[in-house]
């Protein structure tokens, strides 16, 4: 004969039949959908790895909705339908009755994950192949007991909240809302979220059980059940009856209406979080402009290659380029080390992962180089860039970064020496091209050393490319005049940290060169002399370049400058720079190119708000990548009064 307790459990299960049916329905529905839309032979136990995805949230929502709906009337229905009096008359205690209800509720909700796991196993049996042999039974068992803890928590809280009658759903939503809010302030709370129980990370073929969450949520579930049991089995019924009356009264209704607002907030929050478009998963590149739909490409992972002098890190889609560079890199780098009379230590880190670097060939930082690998297909150019940046790294290292304190003053030296070595060791055939702007500018007397010793002004006056051109010629003169020892002396100079520390500009240069036993004036004499000799040699080429002038007009709010440069040979093109303030920095200068007989353009309102602006006209050689500017001059947008 069945024990009274078993009869009670049976009675409760009978009462929960609709929910049981719903659990089964949900589990079957999942499989039906899969069988209607997928090859049955390609479905595996994917649901075991749903962590950190929407699927976990959906699964939690199903469990929570089922548990809360089931427990909403679990205790009070007996009061409301007056069946409790009948049950009290039976030879069972209220504690037994309570236990029977909770057990039946747990079993009913657990039916869903149990059935889903069973279906998953059946599908997995069809889909197993030689790579997917494992049945993952341990994982499956872990998944079920973790679901069990979660369901215990939900049933416990649901049973306790059910005493609030119609307020129970509201209270549940408020709990979720409060938790989300608190987790925003204290992220550590995320570790106790019920979501972490749904398929946590896998290690060693098993889940890493989130014990803290298991203990916390399990305890909350049990504690809630204990409180509900105390009220149901030991408490006075009048409290529940009085609470019921309160809810039906006007204050109760007002409270209900007032509580609706935060509940509405929770619902909107939850809906919005579901409605928000999922960001693409990590490691995926999204291209939305390629065609009519978004296309996702997996990112290529990084690759590493270590040589004696360098440690390359680069995207694995460019491995052939690095494999070409690597064998020549050490030989080229060794020359730089030899030049600076130093021995290599730890390899220099070369970061070539920046695929979007289009505005530079390389950058040097302390003991590391950033190389724009993707946009330099030519191996020779890459090798040159590596030498150039290695020189920067060694200049910084030998000077212990002290030259950085005078960067504006010595930038022409820094870039010049790096360019000198680049063109001396690798790109020798391009040296003449690099020097040409310096020669022309010297021939036209457009700079002096004071300007060279202020790189910000030099860039503003003559463009950034000139720093490399003038610098390389200067570096060549210094190497010739002072020798390699002299250059190393300049870098290792202890005065950089002492007497020279507070000097800038030409006085710095004078003291710096003098501290190594040389004279700046005499070296500069050699520098100018070399440029003058080059100018004599290239007289024909220099004279073939016209000194551009401009016809300025204003049309429909635009300043138009028609560049007059008769006989300008190809591939030179006119260019203009505009600024509204004579002291404007390079960033505030507007550059406009004049292609195909078109004028240079600038918006009058922004460049000449009070009618005056500053204009610089030049010619640019796109093939060689430099520009020869004429000096800046003031201009107006209004004709002078007659």
């Amino acid at each position, binding site marked *: 004969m069945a024990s009274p307790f078993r009869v009670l459990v049976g009675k409760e299960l009978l009462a929960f039949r609709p929910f049981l*049916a719903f659990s089964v329905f*949900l589990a079957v529905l999942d499989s039906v959908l899969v069988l209607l839309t*997928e*090859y049955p032979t390609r479905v595996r136990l994917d649901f075991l790895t749903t962590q950190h995805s929407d699927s976990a949230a959906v699964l939690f929502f199903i469990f929570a909705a089922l548990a809360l709906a089931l427990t909403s009337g679990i205790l009070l229905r007996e009061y409301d339908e007056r069946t409790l009096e009948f049950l009290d008359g039976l030879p069972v205690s209220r504690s037994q009755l309570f236990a029977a209800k909770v057990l039946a509720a747990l079993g009913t909700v657990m039916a869903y994950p149990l059935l889903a796991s069973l279906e998953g196993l059946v599908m997995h049996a069809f889909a197993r192949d*030689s790579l997917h042999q494992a049945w993952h039974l341990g994982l499956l068992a872990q998944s079920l007991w973790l679901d069990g803890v979660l369901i215990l928590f939900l049933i416990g809280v649901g049973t306790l909240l059910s005493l609030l009658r119609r307020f129970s759903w509201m209270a549940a939503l408020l709990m979720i809302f409060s938790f989300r809010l608190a987790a925003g302030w204290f992220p550590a709370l995320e570790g106790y979220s019920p979501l972490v129980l749904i398929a946590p990370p896998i290690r060693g073929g098993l889940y890493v059980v989130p014990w803290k969450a298991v203990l916390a949520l399990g305890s909350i579930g049990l504690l809630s059940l204990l409180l509900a049991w105390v009220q149901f089995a030991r408490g006075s019924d009048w409290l529940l009856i009085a609470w019921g009356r309160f809810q039906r009264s006007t204050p109760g209704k007002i409270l209900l209406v007032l509580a609706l607002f935060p509940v509405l907030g929770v619902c909107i929050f939850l809906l919005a979080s579901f409605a928000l478009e999922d960001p693409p998963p990590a490691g995926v590149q999204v291209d939305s402009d390629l065609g009519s739909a978004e296309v996702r*490409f997996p990112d290529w992972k990084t690759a*590493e290659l270590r040589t004696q002098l360098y440690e390359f890190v680069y995207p*694995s889609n460019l491995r052939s380029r690095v494999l070409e560079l690597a064998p020549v890199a050490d030989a080229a780098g060794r020359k730089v080390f030899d030049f600076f009379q130093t021995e290599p230590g730890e390899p220099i880190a070369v970061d070539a992962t920046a695929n979007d670097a289009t505005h530079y060939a390389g950058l040097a930082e302390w003991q590391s180089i950033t190389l724009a690998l993707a946009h330099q297909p030519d191996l020779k150019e890459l090798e040159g860039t590596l030498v150039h940046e290695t020189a920067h790294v060694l200049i910084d290292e030998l000077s212990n970064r002290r030259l950085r304190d005078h960067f504006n003053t010595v930038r022409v030296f820094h870039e010049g020496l790096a360019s000198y070595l680049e063109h001396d060791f690798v790109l020798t055939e391009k040296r003449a091209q690099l020097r040409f702007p310096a020669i022309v500018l010297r021939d036209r007397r457009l700079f002096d050393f004071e300007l060279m010793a202020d790189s910000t002004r030099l860039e503003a006056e003559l463009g950034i490319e000139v720093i490399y051109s003038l610098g390389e010629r200067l570096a060549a003169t210094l190497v010739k005049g002072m020798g390699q020892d002299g250059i190393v002396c300049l870098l290792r100079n202890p005065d950089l940290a002492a007497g020279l520390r507070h000097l800038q500009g030409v006085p710095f240069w004078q003291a710096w060169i003098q501290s190594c036993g040389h004279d700046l004036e005499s070296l500069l004499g050699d520098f100018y002399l070399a440029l003058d000799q080059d100018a004599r040699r290239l007289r024909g080429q220099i004279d073939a370049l016209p000194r551009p002038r401009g016809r300025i007009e204003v049309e429909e709010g635009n300043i138009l400058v028609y560049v007059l440069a008769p006989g300008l040979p190809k591939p030179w093109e006119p260019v203009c720079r505009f600024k509204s303030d004579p002291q404007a920095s390079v960033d505030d200068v507007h550059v406009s190119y004049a292609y195909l007989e078109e004028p240079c353009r600038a918006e009058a309102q922004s460049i000449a708000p009070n009618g005056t602006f500053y204009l610089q006209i030049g010619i640019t050689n796109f093939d060689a990548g430099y520009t020869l500017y004429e000096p800046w001059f003031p201009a107006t947008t209004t004709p002078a009064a007659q």
Partner: protein
Amino acid sequence: MKTWLILVRKEVRQHLWALAGLLLICMLAYLNLVAYSLTEAAPSAPLQALRAFLIVYMPLTALLLSGRLVVAEYSAGTQVFLEGLPLARVTMVTVKYLLGLVLLFLALALALTLAFSFSSVQPDLRQSTIIALRSAVYLWTIYSFFFLGGFLGRYRFPFYGLVGLGFLLLTYSTDVDLSRWGPFALVDNTLAFERSNLPWMALLWSAALLIVLTSAAYALALIREGSVAALTAQKMSYREKIAFTMVFMAFLTTFTYLDERKDPEPFELVLGSSAHDGYATATVLTAYESEETDHQMAQEWSRELAAMQRFLDLAWVPQVFIVERTDLDPDLFEQGQIQDASGVLARAHITHPDFRAGAFKAWLLRRVLLDASRQRLEEETYAWVLDGFSLYWLDERSQIDRGILMLRALWAVPQEDELEAALLGRWLSVREQLGQEVAAGLAYSGLAALRQRCGPEGVQDFLRRVLATPVPRDLRALWTAPAARPVRALQEACGLSLEELVQDWKALLAENRRQSGLLVESLPRLEMDLEVEAFSSLSRGLRHRITVTPRPAQALLLEVRYGRLQGLEVRKEPQKLHLQVVRYPDRAEDALPGTYTPGERVYAAAQLYVPLLRCNVVSGWRAWEVD
């Protein structure tokens, strides 16, 4: 008339608090309308705000109003008292209906007044009339819908949900655009701009709909002396709630099913040049956007696809898009995942002088076949045929060196005895062991052996059965897919068993081995092992140990590719693997970058490019568990 007034007073008194709440909502809506009109510079802003008012606030107000006027009355059962009074039931219903309607019209009138008065460009009388008429008819229809819902009592929310889902389903699964029909068309985006024409059809449809809805509401309220409405107003039982939830879920599932089944729109490339050959279309976009080059390549590809389609008798081939990516090594290709559109999009450095055109063609044709089969061919049963096909196809068209493919096959099977039928049944593992390209070479040699036995026509028949048999992507695959299985296809196309094919295959390999002499033995083989170094109880390092046989005469550059396996992953795509270049033999034994935790799994292999095979050979992909 007096009775009517009494009833109105009763309604107002009964729902005073609710009406006050509704007034609050309306005030909020007006505030919104005014704020939008003042902050937006566009002249049409107030009328746009009116449209938002009609679409967002008015349905909510109508829902709440009918909820109070009808549902509250019937669920409390107080209509029984009214029925006891000397007034007709129809009068009671009409008073409720008209009271709700009048209140809504008043709310609308105030909204219209605000919208017109805040318009910087005042609408003329005709435009004002059109807007007012459209708004009023829309509102009336919406109200009628919710009024009817009110008489459905506890079933009203399931009713709203099902109607909403039904509309969604209709819009999604058919070409019907509901936004251009009936009441929806009345408040479409022309509401703020239409100055001269009345949307007569939309007005007529709306009028018809509101008559139907109102009639249905009256019918529900009056049939069986109102007892139906009284019954539906009772509280919903658990069973009903669950039944409705099930219906709702079933609807959602249907929706998901239709969504999955819906054919996606073909992808369109913004730039590039397209060419067609029959049903095959290819689009090419090179980096330098030379239209002539693009078109020429597109033509070649469309011809290739069309030829393959004819050869295999495929029902369709997806459109192919080839886009150049210049920062990609010439031997690397990548496929983009097109979201919600169809087609196969590949990127490669196609104009690079060292671009491996043949390898790319084999790779892309394989992807096309996978897409055409909706990934069915990725299953282990068919995988060897798929791997071998693209090389066989290129061989048939004399676009690839047959000797190299045979050499790959010989490298893959050092002794003919190792080749057995069971190997084909665990092809995915074979592919992991040999690497994709060598495995494809081996599979090719199988098809070549079949060609010797059955002739090209027999192979074509076999390939058609395996690769082109239509298999529905659902449960039906369980009984349709067996016809496409290689064992059966082999029997039906050539009258051969798999074991007989393997015998022929072995014979072919043996013959080629004799011809190649010692060449195969001279080709390098790699072995790699990973050793775990314990740094602490929580951290581990890995060291690789690589052996190349026969020992190379000079130093080699090998690649070690590795990556962490997540969850239940058993392998990783090449893009997702890190790469370390290793100088052999100097660094044959070296540390693998990264720190690992016990229990993690690392997927790795060493690979070496072998010029004679024109592909990489691998040490065998494996997953190591860090213990």
